[in-house]
């Protein structure tokens, strides 16, 4: 059952990722990416990480992708690539480099250190919210606080970046 679920979800994830790269409409790309994120969330649940699966669905597939869709709709940038290519050799070169990278990663994963398989019976609650939060607020307290400052800076930066021209115009008028 687990194998069947893994294979199905993996095929959906890879298919959605390929469709995201290949579809010419950016809105379709965003929707395929949401499908990919949801299938990866299912894989998180299979890996016994229920907290991160929920975070993946709410933050990634929910909040971040809504922001993406909002910006695509706002700019009207669905079909930004119509018209001729400026650099003709870009696509074949990108594909060749991608295949080379996949071969490289595959070789390293095949020849690399032997991966251990978990004693799952002991590992059932490593992804529980209680375990995660206990570690987050003790061992990883400093990174957690830094993340909160980073998010605050990101919010301020977003406001600054998008408001600047309006402020400049008002100054010119006064």
């Amino acid at each position, binding site marked *: 059952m687990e194998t069947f679920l*893994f294979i199905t979800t*993996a095929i959906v*994830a890879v298919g959605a*990722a390929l469709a*995201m*790269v290949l579809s010419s409409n950016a809105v379709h*790309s965003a929707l395929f*990416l949401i499908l*990919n994120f949801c299938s*990866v969330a299912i*894989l*998180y649940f299979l*890996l*016994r*990480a229920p907290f991160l699966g929920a*975070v*993946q669905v709410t933050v*990634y597939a929910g*909040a*971040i992708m809504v922001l*993406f869709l909002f*910006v695509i709709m*706002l*700019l009207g*940038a669905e079909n*930004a*690539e119509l018209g001729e*290519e*400026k650099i003709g050799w*870009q696509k074949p070169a*990108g*594909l060749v*480099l*991608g*295949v080379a*990278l*996949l071969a490289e990663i*595959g070789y390293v994963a095949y020849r690399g250190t032997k*991966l*251990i*398989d*978990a004693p*799952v019976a002991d590992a059932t609650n*490593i*992804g529980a919210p209680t*375990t*995660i939060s206990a*570690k*987050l607020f003790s061992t990883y307290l400093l990174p957690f606080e830094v*993340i909160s400052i*980073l*998010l605050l*800076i*990101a*919010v301020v*930066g*977003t406001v600054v*970046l*998008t408001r*600047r021209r309006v402020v400049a115009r008002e100054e010119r008028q006064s």
Partner: protein
Amino acid sequence: MISTNAYVLLSAILFTIGVVGVLVRRNVIVMFMSVELMLNSANLALIAFSRARAESDGQIITFFVIAVAAAEVAVGLALLVSIFRAKKTTNVDDVNTLKG
């Protein structure tokens, strides 16, 4: 149960698709989404390793990666909006002001 190798292989495939997306696509929003795909595949590998070692540290790192990705998307999309206001385009080949 599924071996960690299978998850790492899937993660490698997703990462490569993200890299190819950045290299091949010219729409800057789609390139940005490909970067998200790469971050996501790294998260998948981290969680697979976390299960293999029966420790939750990999999952906490994934949590931080998701938080940093959220901040990055907020700032990146704000940059895109201001570039679009200045240049009226989202095609990266048209944003070549620094080109000599």
